[in-house]
């Protein structure tokens, strides 16, 4: 009789097993995190110097058509400091930004000097400013220096619609122009354009414009990559 009553009104244990469960869970998590750290520690990803550059995948215009482009496909993971390798110059622009318009010439000049040892990549973004409209046609015209818009300040064309894209300073940019996005800008912590960063061949950031206000890109490339042709 007493046994049946005990069965019908079963009580929980006197000790609070939630503490035991918490400790058990803590142990499981500790083992898991130790395994992760030992087998494959997480990388420090970001645009700051010494960090692994944030990867992205987006459509890229190569002068003929738009194709998928993944930044990390350009990384040479086997590269070691001191060895030869292809460095990567990442530029963020808005085709309607006046500073990006004038930087077109600098980029052409850099390309003519370092195209053998540096891969050039331009990421186009659209800043939230009136008359800024970087559609694909404008991006193609900006890169290829083809006619798009007018020379009147009518909002039509590059440089906030002040110029026909054919008149962009510099030569044709014979490298990939990536269709950027706000998420790429965010991961690269880009607050304005133009923005430049130089990556080592293995994808780690070697130079970030924001961290070197006293050094321009030519000086940085000469110092870091060296050997301008």
């Amino acid at each position, binding site marked *: 009789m007493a046994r049946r009553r005990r069965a019908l009104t079963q009580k929980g*244990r006197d000790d609070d097993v*939630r503490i035991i469960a918490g400790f058990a869970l803590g142990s499981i998590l500790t083992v898991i995190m130790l395994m992760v750290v030992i087998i494959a520690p997480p990388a420090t990803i970001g645009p700051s110097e010494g960090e692994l550059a944030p990867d992205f995948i987006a459509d890229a215009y190569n002068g003929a058509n738009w194709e998928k482009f993944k930044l990390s496909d350009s990384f040479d993971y086997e590269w070691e400091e001191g060895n030869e390798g292809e460095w990567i110059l990442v530029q963020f622009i808005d085709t309607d930004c006046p500073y990006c318009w004038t930087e077109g010439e600098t980029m052409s000049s850099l390309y003519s000097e370092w195209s053998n040892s540096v891969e050039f990549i331009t990421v186009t973004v659209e800043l939230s400013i009136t008359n800024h409209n970087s559609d694909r046609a404008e991006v193609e015209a900006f890169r290829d220096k083809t006619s798009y818009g007018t020379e009147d300040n009518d909002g039509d064309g590059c440089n906030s619609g002040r110029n026909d894209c054919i008149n962009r300073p510099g030569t044709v940019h014979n490298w990939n122009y990536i269709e950027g996005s706000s998420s790429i800008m965010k991961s690269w912590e880009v607050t304005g354009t133009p923005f430049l960063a130089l990556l080592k061949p293995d994808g780690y950031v070697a130079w970030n414009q924001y961290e070197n206000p006293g050094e321009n890109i030519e000086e940085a490339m000469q110092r870091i990559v060296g050997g301008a042709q």
Partner: protein
Amino acid sequence: MIESLTDPILIIFIIALTLSAYLMLINNEKKTTMLLISSLSFSIIGIASSAYTYIIHNKMVLQGSTSFCSSEGIVQCGSVIGDPQWNNLFGIPWGVFGILSFSILIFFSLCLYLDRHAKWSEDYLNYAWWAGIAGLPFVALLVVIELTQVEGAPHICPFCTVAHVSLIGYVSSIYFLRIRRNMGKWSENEG
């Protein structure tokens, strides 16, 4: 595809899932205990597979590839976990989300397993149910991403699928446990 499916780690996960499903479906006089063990087992497989995908993620980021999972064919992890656009949520890898989510589920199941007659047991059973249900839309989203969004879609990431099946198994176990509780069969000697 065959290469991906013969991965020894994957085979271990599949065997563990099968055993957990067996515990969930077996009918004996210790049904409640079996279901509690099953839910615990599913959540442990879930956390282990999430951790494994996180390891693959880190390897992919640091080395561009990994020997831990194939990068060729439809059934592979490379194009899924290696896709920078879809392999994270607000910058946090999905594997980390999996580890944290399954931690919560393990905690509920472990508490229930250790003391199913505690005052809080009914609440915890409900919490486990709703926490499991909350994860299902994410599973659906990730399957859609695998099949339609990642580079070269469709792809199926086998280790991600293990985590997804674990969650579905967990929710099923908790569903059967709730039924037993509602039918007054919570104690073994009442079932």
